[in-house]
């Protein structure tokens, strides 16, 4: 490779960027979610539901002004890293640097540590919220984009995946998503954000749903048919009556976000990943 095109990034920059993201993200609920909550407050017909949304907005204001986490569950630290293919990392291991940033951010930011060592037998808290879940994509260029999401456990537990036959079509997708939200009921802290992955493979569709659920509220899929399906699903979910916190009302979801990918001729994988009304995430480009 032509040496002049290679950009060197010391991993200490990664540590600092991840630390900063971890410390600041959970107290700053994204603007898109705040706007959607403000709209929902005006529209909500249930008096109890309206009061719940008012308190949620008040909570998010306190979190921002006092730099405290909006929710005590500051989640699994999820890092989505886009690495320019002309970047060369120096000074250490990239994944260790990411985890060091998470460690420093969660300790210095007074965030809750919610990770246990093994899932089944010991379940000992690691004490610093590591290891994080890391996905890397190689992209053209010399930038490094780091996206951080603090994914809470309550909404994550209400997620699901199905391998539909292609004949199930749009109706099959619709039924699966609506059933998933209905079954989740009050558990994932409605009003929720619904992330839907469609296509790919068994493993890829789950990641599509994750990427969908952390997409900003207020954005649509660029494909008009999928954007239309997002709107229709949102309307249908808000007819379920679950409402804010499940106490009954019109605002069950703030947004339905779909991400899709090509798939096998025999398959129609669908995954549904849920997030609460806060859904903290942010990104930095180095």
């Amino acid at each position, binding site marked *: 490779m032509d040496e002049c095109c290679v950009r060197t990034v010391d991993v200490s920059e990664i540590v600092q960027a991840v630390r900063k993201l971890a410390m600041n993200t959970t*107290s700053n609920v994204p603007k898109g979610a705040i706007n959607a909550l403000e709209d929902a407050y005006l529209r909500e*017909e*249930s*008096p*109890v539901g309206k*009061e*719940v949304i008012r*308190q*949620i907005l*008040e*909570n*998010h204001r*306190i*979190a921002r002004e*006092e730099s*405290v*986490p*909006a*929710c*005590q*569950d*500051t989640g699994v630290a999820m890092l989505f890293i886009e690495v320019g293919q002309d970047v060369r990392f120096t000074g250490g291991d990239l994944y260790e640097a990411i985890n060091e940033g998470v460690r420093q951010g969660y300790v210095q930011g*007074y*965030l*809750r*540590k*919610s990770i246990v060592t093994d899932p089944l037998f010991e*379940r000992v*808290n690691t*004490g610093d919220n590591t290891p994080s879940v890391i996905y890397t994509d190689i992209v053209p260029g010399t930038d490094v984009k780091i996206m951080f999401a603090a994914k809470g*456990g*309550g909404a994550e*537990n209400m997620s699901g995946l199905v391998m539909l036959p292609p004949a199930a079509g749009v109706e099959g997708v619709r039924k699966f998503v609506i059933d998933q939200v209905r079954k989740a*009921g*009050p*558990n*994932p*802290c409605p009003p929720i954000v619904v992330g839907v992955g469609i296509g790919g493979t068994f493993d890829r569709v789950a990641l599509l749903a994750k990427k969908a659920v952390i997409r900003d509220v207020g954005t649509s899929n660029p494909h008009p048919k999928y954007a239309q399906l997002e709107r229709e699903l949102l309307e*249908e979910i808000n*007819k*379920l*009556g*679950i*409402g804010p*916190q*499940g*106490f*009954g*009302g*019109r605002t069950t979801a703030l947004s339905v976000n779909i991400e899709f990918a090509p798939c096998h001729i025999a398959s129609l994988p669908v995954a549904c990943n849920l997030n*609460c*009304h*806060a859904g903290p995430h942010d990104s930095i480009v180095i």
Partner: protein
Amino acid sequence: MAVIRISTPLTDEITASLKAGDNVIISGTLYTARDAAHKRLVSLIREGKELPMDIQGQIIYYVGPAPAKPGQAIGSAGPTTSYRMDSYAPILMEHGLKGMIGKGSRSESVRDAMVRYKAVYFAAIGGAGALLAKCVKASEIVAYEELGPEAIRKLTVEDFPAVVVNDTFGNDLYEQGVKEYKIDTCK
């Protein structure tokens, strides 16, 4: 909206006066416990051993708080999802527990136990941890410090807002709410 003020410990008279959908403000003591602490408490009961705190008439709050920043009594402290404690809750009610605070639906066996033992399940607003932390005036660890956020804490709360979801008569606010606001679609 009418708000009912209650203080801990709860008596049968207090729990019997509450109805699903009531807005309450709680003052007094709340004990925190979630998955890992419940597992240990129930093991102690099954082994005939003493619990680290007296649960007679008490309320358990399902929460794993964030660490307190300097000057705070506690970090953000909203409810966690309650169904994970469903397999442990009836035996605690049998031994005197009168209230639970969390979020989300309870199983039928928990709801039956609430009727039988005159206990109440309250919901606090999930994801409002910063707001709810302001009602916590003091926090001390009672047991299982090694569990970190899952340790049992004794919280002193003032005007902690919650909603009655399951009362001692078998009513369920979540079912009532959906029934009232569901729009049927012909599909």
